[in-house]
């Protein structure tokens, strides 16, 4: 742990060394903690109890390790994204190689956010790492698979977006009729299959 940072009188932010440590810390059950929110490198802990921060500090010093996560989702994708050709050009790959690279990796949900049901997936092969688009699109349709930086993810609903669009899935990421409504939770494993 690099630091425990203040977040007002009812919360604090634990900086972790890795996403694995974030998930390990998120699995702790600490008295007086009402909610934890995993980030990419941090865990936001809601608690008014000063002892809770000390518990996280000592758990981290002892080296917190995540439990094994069994949940794996396979998401079927039509790789027809508007930016597929641009991504191929920028990465010096063919379109088929971009698709093979993207479907060949296993991803983990690092965190959820942006809009409900949006899961930031880590594990994108380095050759597909690209900065976000210079100008975000005002509107990206629901079900769009995209990449940016070290991340890949699926837009759960129509929203603005600055990521590179690779394809489309009909699997709903967010469905209020489902329990839980989000398809993916932090720690889940995900692979994509081209159809």
């Amino acid at each position, binding site marked *: 742990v690099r630091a425990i940072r203040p977040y007002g009188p009812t919360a604090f932010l634990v900086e972790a060394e890795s996403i694995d440590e974030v998930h390990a810390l998120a699995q702790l059950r600490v008295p007086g903690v009402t909610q934890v929110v*995993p980030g990419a490198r941090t865990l936001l802990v809601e608690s008014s109890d000063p002892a809770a921060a000390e518990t996280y500090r000592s758990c981290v010093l002892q080296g917190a390790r995540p439990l094994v996560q069994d949940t794996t989702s396979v998401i079927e994708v039509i790789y027809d994204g508007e930016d597929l050709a641009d991504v191929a050009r920028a990465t010096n790959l063919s379109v088929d190689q971009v698709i093979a690279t993207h479907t060949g990796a296993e991803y983990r949900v690092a965190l959820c956010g942006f809009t*409900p*049901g949006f899961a930031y997936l880590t594990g994108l092969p380095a050759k597909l790492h690209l900065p976000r688009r210079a100008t975000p699109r005002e509107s990206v349709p629901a079900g769009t698979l995209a990449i940016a930086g070290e991340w890949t993810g699926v837009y759960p609903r129509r929203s603005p977006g600055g990521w590179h669009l690779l394809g489309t899935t009909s699997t709903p990421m967010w469905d209020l009729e489902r329990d839980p409504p*989000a398809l993916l939770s932090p720690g889940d494993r995900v692979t994509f299959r081209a159809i």
Partner: protein
Amino acid sequence: VLRVISAGALTLVEDAGRFGVAHLGVGRSGAADSAASAAANAAVGNPANAAALETLLDGLTLAALQPCMVAIAGTGSPVVPTPLEVGQSVTVAGGESGLRRYLAVRGGVDAAVFLGSRSTDLLAGIGAPLQAGDVVGIAGEETTFPETVADPPLPGANGTTVRVYPGPRADWCEPDALVVSAWTVTASSDRTGVRLEGAPIARTITDELPPEGLLPGAVQVPPSGQPIVFLYDHPVTGGYPVIGVVHPDDLRLVAQTRPGRTIRFVPA
């Protein structure tokens, strides 16, 4: 049971919100001014966390379809329990202070309970704004005696002062950037966040921040340098530095400050 005659600018069912569901990507939601919502509920004898109607400014009009008792808070006037006979109507109206009014009905407003709360969350797509013709049901919460209560103080025309704690990324911007000048609430504010306008805040650390957790009251600085104070329909994570956190008791004042009016921050 009441019928919506006019829904006003925006009327939502809100209770105390959802707790402990951020890992599902769902924020807290709930009344933006919990003290005013609690006052309206207290006046009709409801528990403080019963669902009530949150409405922007004036104009919400309801007609009683059966005898019931209502109270309105967030207007700057005492909160008085008011019995309604069948066919009688009530219109929310208040003074020049405040932005969000609360109408409670004895027994609590009914709506579908989702993840432990009846609150509408516009960001998550849970529930929807009321429309003219909608019927507002009564939940049947356990009640105590109704009584007139004081309305919690509202920000005035000269603006309001709120206490702010240093945020986790306070060192990413100029020190004291929030407290050195006054900020104007912009019209693009909503239940997600109150967008402020003023002297832009310069970043001292310009690295890209990996996304991290947000809470109601978090003050985030996007690239424009114009801060956003997150309210209750906030996204659960964000990728810009949080440089301050509004005191939980003062966040209602931020939510009640009208666009065009001023907010000043002071160290908590």
